[in-house]
């Protein structure tokens, strides 16, 4: 997989993960171009399309589009299920995930994705293993942190 994008129906990019080195300028251009193409497609259309030298696999979940760019020899259907499994992981972690969860906890979304995919390939397909890694991290976080006052949080203290 070359990259994965999450964007909203309004064309706001919510998450981007690039698995090959790409210049920032090119990234922005590609994101813009792809969003335009995907958002223009109608609901019943097929989930695959050819774009440049890549294949695009996308699926919409509620207000969010999940969009993967894969290579010529990659399998489209299994990529659709990569997306689905990622959604399941987010859902399980956040408890019926919605776009806001991903906005406010973007770093967690990245961590979950990293546990699932690495370098564009699947690291583990088991929901249990992936979530175990994330939960461990959260437990560590709990131990780390002592409560802080709101003022302190806002940098006013």
């Amino acid at each position, binding site marked *: 997989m070359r990259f994965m994008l999450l964007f909203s129906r309004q064309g706001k990019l919510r998450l981007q993960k690039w698995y090959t080195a790409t210049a920032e300028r090119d990234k922005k251009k590609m994101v813009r171009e792809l969003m335009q193409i995907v958002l223009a497609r109608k609901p019943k259309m097929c989930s695959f399309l050819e774009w440049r030298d890549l294949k695009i696999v996308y699926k919409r979940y509620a207000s969010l589009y999940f969009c993967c760019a894969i290579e010529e020899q990659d399998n489209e259907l299994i990529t659709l299920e990569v997306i689905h499994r990622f959604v399941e992981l987010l859902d399980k972690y956040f408890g019926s995930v919605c776009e806001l969860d991903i906005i406010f906890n973007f770093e967690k979304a990245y961590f979950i994705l990293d546990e699932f995919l*690495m370098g564009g390939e699947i690291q583990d397909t088991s929901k*249990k293993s992936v979530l175990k890694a994330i939960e461990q*991290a959260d437990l*560590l976080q709990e131990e*780390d942190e002592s409560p802080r006052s709101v003022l302190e949080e*806002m940098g006013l203290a």
Partner: protein
Amino acid sequence: MPAVSKGDGMRGLAVFISDIRNCKSKEAEIKRINKELANIRSKFKGDKALDGYSKKKYVCKLLFIFLLGHDIDFGHMEAVNLLSSNKYTEKQIGYLFISVLVNSNSELIRLINNAIKNDLSSRNPTFMCLALHCIANVGSREMAEAFASEIPRILVAGDTMDSVKQSAALCLLRLYKTSPDLVLMGEWTSRVVHLLNDQHMGVVTAAISLITCLSQKNPDEFKTCVSLAVSRLSRIVSSASTDLQDYTYYFVPAPWLSCKLLRLLQCYPPPEDGAVKGRLVECLETILNKAQEPPKSKKVQHSNAKNAILFEAISLIIHYDSEPNLLVRACNQLGQFLQHRETNLRYLALESMCTLASSEFSHEAVKTHIETVINALKTERDVSVRQRAADLLYAMCDRSNAKQIVAEMLSYLETADYSIREEMVLKVAILAEKYAVDYSWYVDTILNLIRIAGDYVSEEVWYRVIQIVINRDDVQGYAAKTVFEALQAPACHENMVKVGGYILGEFGNLIAGDPRSSPLVQFNLLHSKFHLCSVPTRALLLSAYIKFINLFPETKATIQEVLRCDSQIRNSDVELQQRAVEYLKLSSIASTDVLATVLEEMPPFPERESSILAKLKKKKGPGAVSVTELEDSKREGGELNGGGDRGPDTSAMSASNASTPSPSADLLGIRSSAPAGTAPASAGNLLVDVFSEAGPAAPSAAVNDDGFLRDLEQPTETSDSLLVEGSGDSEFVCKNNGVLFENQLLQIGIKSEYRQNLGRMYLFYGNKTSVQFASFTTSVSCPGELQSQLNVQTKQVEPLVEGGAQIQQVLNIECLTDFSDAPLLNIKFRYGGALQNLTLKLPVTINKFFQPTEMSSHDFFQRWKQLSQPQQEAQKIFKANHSMDTEVLKAKLLGLGTALLDNVDPNPENYVCAGVIQTKGQQVGCLLRLEPNAQAQMYRLTLRCSKDSVSRRLCELLAEQF
């Protein structure tokens, strides 16, 4: 699931994010961000040391700002500091920031690498995984250099935790993809392959991606993976849906791993070991069988996962292309999908069938689905599916169904989406040509194509129909009749006018017997379109008119009248004006015989690969063209470049170049000199030259539309460097300016000046086409020892050369010491997608650094005697290759750069010259004596120089000049 802290870990971050969300405008957002950036900056710069938590929070905010699309130019150091924190979440945010915003700052990379190194050796699996993720996310060369040797060790070590193994495998894969030279598997190979047997499915899933990539590059070293993969696959395929617990996905056992195993097997030919092969065939059959079973779940995830495996299995079957039974079963399965209610499956089935169509075993089976595919082309609502249907029709086309398929594609074209029209047009044109049994059908098809989708008919298509009509005399009459009829339409496409003009100009006589298409009727019909057409088409029509004068003398007066009118003969377009003037003159002064020779019917084109096929390949990549097609074109003997130029073409080219240069053709006001033999300055009227000198010998196409010839000689894609020898070598020895190179696309002019041991050369690159050249790069190299003899410097040119434009490049040349070789100029650019690559010798020769030296007869002979060592002299006796005319010789000797000394040699027939070659290191005095023998048409050339290598080189160079 614990009640995780989620967002409330960093409340300040949440507040900031919701502030941003509440911004009503872009400006407000930027204002809020700038405020935050200022705040963070002051915190980072402040005297008070920040605790880890605050650092984490601010780094996270910066990350958020960056992901919103804003630039971040600070905070890297703080992020790097977080890496060495002992708190997991701080470390994690640090790594996240680094992976997203890595900076190639070398100092930083060193610090990052240090932190990673510490984490890798921490033996804390969570930290190790974080470090490995960071390496994989950044994946830079520096990272590979630092860690490529360490990671294989972690991967295969017995005590490594499974989760770390998984990360290590994929991390290594990423490094291998970026820097394969740094990842050496060597001793680890066999242990990596055996990860396929690992107990832990997650480890196998991760490892197989690595193994597949390594196998593609080193199939032999990894071939033991085949049998391991087959047995693993077999175990999964035969397992019940509950056996694999968490690795079962919607009742499908390990779909990801299954797909990857099938993918890995596609790196290899079918297994040689009978048992292994049997087991694999069994697996494939089971997969095909399962597709027929009722689904275990109605969820789309179940069917997707199951079918993902099925499609991967079919890919493997197609890859092997050796099991007819499986191929036909695959085809039947795909046939069912063609009518499936899931759009995705229909799309994939059409795509997959395209490859099946090229297998001899399944081609016939694919053909049985023709009606369904045609129906898909007509009724699918999604253009990308229709595109696949069109591809499949193209792939399944053969002689038996060509007429049906071409007809369907033509009728689809009327309503086809704009995005795919051009490709459709190419496909129709190719099929029509390839399967044309009778050429009248072919001509009809192409004319229909122009009528229906004229705007999308590229030049290649109409050139091709002309090539074919010219080459096949059985279709010429029909073609003339059909274009004549097509032109009757009140509004016909300009491409139709082009084809019509060309064909009637060549073969109008074949239908002139019918009074309804008498010569004048034909002419009036063509001319009625003239004013609606663009310049190139008008130019073509003018050529058709002059051909008419030859074909039908009775039209001469009418046509001359047209040519003579102001709108032609004074046309503001140079090309049109020149054609009008020349054709008018030609028709009035040439005798009928001359006219008939000059305007003779075009000779047949050499058989070559269809230019449209080449275009489609370019468009779609080689994979788009089926195997049979490639073989066909090979059989036709179509060498890519048509085996070089034919005589008539070349001579016509040079003649027409000179007579009607396109606006960009002449760069320096110097005509490219005609080939040796016709050299004597033909500055006068070229047409007169054609008549006086070459009359009957002039090639048939001598005065002709360069448009046709030039364009039909479309260059085909080749990336081999075309080394053009010679011309630069001898032609420019005695002159400094001229056209160095010219083909259909590009003209290169040079202008140069030399003083002492320095020279400056201006290169003018002219784009002769109307299409932009992209990625235009030039480089000058001094091969071998020339490197130490000559110093050539230049700046890079702009990478884009617009159609018709000319760009200039300046070379600064310094002669360090005497030399023999020429520097090489390499030019690369893309023209319509095809890479053009050209290498030329630059005409920099040692004599360019001559300073003339005047001297008396006495001095000359004194020095001549001083240079009396045998190796200082070089002599050659040779036959005259060019005119021995005194003035010509003098001009050449002066052009050489030496002083031509009068009254030195006792024999006035002889020429003597003197000069000094200036190099950086030394000056080389040279004396030259040229003794012509007019009777014998021979010369004797003698050189004496203070350096023997210079004598030899000059002698070589000059011997070719006279």
